């Protein structure tokens, strides 16, 4: 069973619940986003799925391996890029990579062409013999990505993969992620960079200890659609009238602009009629999808309770 299957997964550290009742699956070839604020349980989830922590509830399989009992075979098919590059500064780039080749018991002669391919791709070709301590933050991050890929993993967990990278390098990494997914690998991306998540991920899960929402990025954004209305004069004076509508939408007013959150497209004419009835001169009314960031923040606010 390839991909990732998670069912009611939970983790407690003593009395503290880090993750509870988490369920999702990720297909081979899919880039899946795991979103959540600091301390939401993303790292704990990734650690459970890479066999570093034992779940206290539920079960999960990663590329057919149970996370609670198949530690060694699981870690052979998994690649993990941690938030910090975690490289050995006194060793050269080549020595850092060789160490992980040895840990994976790879035939170095066969593994090197692959490593060299990624080193070249990330602009580190010819820097193999330099101590990593002299590398810039971006170079270290790129080398850590190469290390994550050196054993040809089927499932890849990337925690903030473009952190510290310049725009060009970040684009190279994003292209590489898309290419790895097109090769049939399963990729889980943990990031606070929502624009990047929007660009790379087909589906996302928003977690805050438990699952707050999950679905294709487009659907999540659609669920958070809005009507942007431009009126004459200060828009704030119409907020009271809009609050009288049967579906009492959330409204944001800024200068002549109103942003009315809708649960359904069909509510848009009622909003316009209400405004006209309240004496507004409506210049334009444009249905928009809210940026993922706004949806994400609203989900977190709702999840706070």
């Amino acid at each position, binding site marked *: 069973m390839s991909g990732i299957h998670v069912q009611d997964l939970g983790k407690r*550290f003593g009395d503290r619940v880090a993750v509870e009742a988490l369920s999702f699956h990720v297909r081979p070839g899919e880039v899946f986003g795991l979103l959540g604020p600091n301390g939401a349980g993303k790292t704990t989830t990734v*650690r459970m799925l*890479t*066999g*570093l*922590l*034992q779940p206290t509830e539920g079960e999960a399989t990663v590329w057919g391996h149970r996370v609670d009992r198949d*530690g*060694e075979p699981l*870690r*052979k098919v*998994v690649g*993990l890029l*941690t938030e*910090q*590059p*975690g*490289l*050995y*500064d*006194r*060793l050269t780039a080549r*020595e850092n990579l060789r*160490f*992980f080749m*040895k*840990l*994976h*018991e790879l035939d170095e002669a066969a593994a090197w062409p692959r490593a060299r391919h990624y080193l070249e791709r990330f602009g580190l070709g010819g820097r193999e013999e330099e*101590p990593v301590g002299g590398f810039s933050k971006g170079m270290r991050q790129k080398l*850590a990505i190469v*290390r*994550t890929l050196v054993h040809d993993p089927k499932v890849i967990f990337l925690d903030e993969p473009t952190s510290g990278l310049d725009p060009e390098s970040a684009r190279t990494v994003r292209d590489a992620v898309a290419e790895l997914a097109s090769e049939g690998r399963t990729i889980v991306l943990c990031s606070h960079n929502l624009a990047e998540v929007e660009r790379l991920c087909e589906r996302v899960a928003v977690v805050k200890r438990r699952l707050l929402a999950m679905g294709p990025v487009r659907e999540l954004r659609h669920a958070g659609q809005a009507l942007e209305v431009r009126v004459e004069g200060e828009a704030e004076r119409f907020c009271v009238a809009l609050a009288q509508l049967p579906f009492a939408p959330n409204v944001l007013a800024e200068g002549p602009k109103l942003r009315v959150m809708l649960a359904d497209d069909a509510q848009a004419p009622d909003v316009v009629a209400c405004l006209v009835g309240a004496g507004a001169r409506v210049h334009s009314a444009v249905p928009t999808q809210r940026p993922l960031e706004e949806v994400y923040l609203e989900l977190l606010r709702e999840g706070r309770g």
Partner: protein
Amino acid sequence: MAFRPKRALAVFWKDFLDLRKNVGLLVSMMVLPAVMVLVPIGVVWTYVRTPDHADLRSVALFYDPTLPLGASAARFLIDKTLTDWFGMFLVMPVFVPILIASQSVAGEKERRTLEPLLASPVTAAELVTGKSLAALVPSVAITWTAFVLFCVGVDIVAWPLVKMPLMPNALWTFGVFVIAPLFAFFGNGVAVLISARVSEARMAQQLSALVVLPIVGMVGGQVAGVLKAGFGYYLLQGAVVLVLDALLLWASIRLLDRERLVSRWG
């Protein structure tokens, strides 16, 4: 989960390579052996330089009131120094692995390298074995090298008085090749376990280094004439440390599982 020696050797290879490039640590590792070799050579040289000094006999009689009238006090004190110094020499195989293991184990946490390492197929047992080897092999090699230099130095400075090689003798040979590795294993085990509980390599070093105090205390007892060192005395020390080594091994296997390492170190 199967123990794969190749993976333990990979950890050893990496740590040994890292140690070779850590100039600061190498220098601090060399200070203690230099002291352990030069101090007793200096003491022996002092006795040899003034063998007929009247005070030497008083000192010798303090340690052995039955010393025959015609016996050389200088020779007696040289023999006593060599016997007693072995107790002090044992500080080295305990202390050097503490320096290395604290850096390599708690250092993984400080450098944030532990999580990628534990996400590889390496098991906790392989990790601890590899890291222990990386601390033990240099420590034992340094101890043995220091022993060779010590023997050569003592024999050179003692020759004018005794006209024969004093070192290596049976006590030192047995001690350096059998007891010292047991002490090194002990120092490493303590450092590994303490490193797993604290967040900084420096703190791990400072706490682990406290284990040398009993050894130094016993040498103090020998110098004060309270303890009488000899083959049986050191054999007993070795037996006690062997038991402690077994306990440390048991504790390491029980305490250093992957989850504990990630929870505490990650």
